[in-house]
């Protein structure tokens, strides 16, 4: 009986998450500075479904705005938000620490250094090379942190401290490189602030394979993270290899975060706030927290970006400002209403 009740509760939560994501996509598709009428937008979207033929009345230019500019941004927002939240939840499971997200393990600092080097070294050729450089930098940052941490000693706190040290080191190198090339400051800072404003279908297609692999890898390890949450000893007594699981999950999270960072720059807070909100809703089992974080994260970032696009339209706010402005109070609220924070 209790199991059945728990299962139906989980099913309900998945339904809520899917509806939330769908609503966020709709809001994202409707909102924007171009002032397309919601009815025409809806008609144009429905027209794309098989067996539906509707005349939207949108001009070719409006049509291009909707399908070439707004929708890729919505989809990219969903992918980036989902990836960052999933990575955050995964890291929190690996490190048994609720305050960890991808920025703490060398990922953000590595991406920042990669992007800065690309912009400074390549100049005009940089715009196409920055995502690849950020992607590589992000993975390299995590790899260095992991190697330093693992050789430093067993356990998760060494790894975490190594991540912090590597992050600070990479950030210092990045600042030094930037200092040497002050002409590029505006470009680099724009990138660091994070943005989805240049989203294209091309970018979406580029990161999708990496994200899919990363998501599958991380989601498959929810059960193992639940066991490790009790402790490494208990995990070993059940035949698991804690070190190996940590390596696999960290690699998956690093891949997810790297593909997000490559196309969006550094967007903070999503990776911490969303998993916490999910835990508040669904309890602490990673089998549920991981997939729900993916869904809720996607929806949340779409909404944050919709706010960034419309609050001061036709101007835009940097999305990092929105996620921090909304994220920090939400975070405090979640902490206050949670009796005990367990991860």
């Amino acid at each position: 009986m209790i199991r059945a009740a728990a299962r139906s509760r989980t099913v309900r939560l998945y339904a809520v998450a899917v509806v939330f994501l769908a609503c966020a996509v709709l809001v994202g598709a409707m909102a924007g500075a171009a002032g397309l009428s919601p009815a025409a937008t809806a008609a144009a979207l429905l027209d794309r479904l098989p067996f539906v033929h509707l005349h939207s009345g949108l001009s070719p230019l409006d049509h291009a705005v909707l399908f070439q500019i707004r929708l890729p941004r919505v989809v990219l927002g969903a992918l980036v938000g989902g990836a960052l939240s999933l990575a955050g939840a995964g890291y929190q499971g690996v490190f048994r620490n609720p305050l960890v997200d991808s920025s703490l393990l060398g990922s953000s600092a590595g991406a920042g250094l990669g992007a800065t080097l690309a912009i400074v070294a390549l100049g005009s050729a940089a715009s196409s090379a920055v995502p690849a450089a950020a992607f590589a930098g992000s993975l390299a940052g995590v790899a260095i942190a992991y190697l330093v941490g693992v050789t430093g000693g067993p356990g998760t706190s060494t790894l975490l401290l190594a991540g912090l040290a590597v992050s600070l080191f990479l950030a210092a190198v990045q600042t030094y490189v930037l200092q040497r090339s002050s002409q590029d400051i505006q470009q680099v800072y724009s990138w660091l602030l994070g943005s989805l404003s240049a989203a294209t279908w091309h970018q979406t297609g580029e990161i999708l394979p990496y994200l899919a692999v990363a998501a599958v890898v991380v989601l498959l390890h929810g059960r193992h993270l639940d066991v490790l949450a009790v402790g490494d000893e208990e995990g070993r007594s059940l035949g698991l290899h804690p070190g190996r699981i940590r390596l696999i999950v960290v690699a998956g999270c690093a891949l997810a975060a790297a593909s997000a960072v490559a196309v969006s720059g550094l967007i903070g807070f999503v990776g911490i706030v969303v998993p916490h909100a999910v835990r508040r809703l669904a309890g602490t089992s990673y089998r549920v927290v991981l997939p729900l974080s993916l869904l809720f994260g996607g929806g949340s970032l779409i909404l944050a970006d919709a706010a960034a696009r419309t609050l001061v339209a036709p101007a835009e706010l940097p999305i990092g400002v929105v996620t921090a402005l909304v994220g920090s109070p939400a975070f405090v609220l979640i902490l206050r209403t949670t009796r005990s924070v367990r991860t």
Partner: protein
Amino acid sequence: MTHRPGRRRILHRAPFLRALSAATAALAATTFIAGCGSGKSSDGASSRASSSASGSPAASFPVTLRAANGKVTIAARPAHIVSLSPTATEDLYAVGAGKQVVAVDADSDYPASAPVTSLSGLTPNIEAIAKYSPDLVVASQDSGGLVDRLGKLGVPVMIEPAAATIDDAYTQIDRIGRATGHTAQAEHTVAGMKSRIAATLKRAGSHHSGLSYYWELGASPYYSATSSTFVGRVASLFGLKNVADKADKASDGGYPQLSQEYIVSAKPRLIFLGDSGKSDGGQSPAIVSARPGWSGIPAVRSKAVIGLDGDVASRWGPRLPQLVDAIARAVEKAPSR
């Protein structure tokens, strides 16, 4: 050689205790001046004589100017000028003070003969600047306490910030001319700029006025300049209408971050790329035309996307007529409505 009248002012005005330390510094400064004086006289009268020898009879020192950082007094015709601003460097060479310039910052790439160093105007290193024993430093911003700290060394600093209006740009050239003993040539430079711009405007006429334009400063995210900015005012000379003006309420000082879909749906008839330089973002008319969703913009359809020289478009110096020319060519080519 040093900031002598300034020192005296400090002595008169400073509270007694602080005067003591200032007096010590002033003593050192006086000794220094005496040392210079033995080789090259630097009081007002003889500097006038020496500058008339260099071909600028109107110059007279000491001269007190009002720059953005307040009153700046320059005791004698400066012979070791350090410029920390690319625009100031161009101004200095345009007014004929190039021979007096001993060092310019790493971003000053014009004219090619300017003595480029690794000095930075954004994060100035006072000791590195002092190494050139400057008798005048020109910068575009007072970062890192530049004015105060060089003032302590007796070095006068002129802050010439980004010009808000076209007249500001002229005023700065005039002021740099007076500060360096080239008043007449500065006036000549400004008059030349004005007449060249007037001729360009006359040639372009007014039959294209009212064309809408989008001025791009960055593409990731999309940063623009409104008509209240310096470049916006230059475009307004042609009666062009800026599509970013509606976004200016976001209080970003005339440089709003625009939503891409707004840019497209505003249908600008001209697009100016201030970010087409190698270090400005490397955008180009071809890249802009290939951006998804942009092909329907009138400016893209009529190939009225103009890659500007990023340096000319981001400075407010003597090459301003080149920027006006570039806009004029685009306006003349654009199909009239």
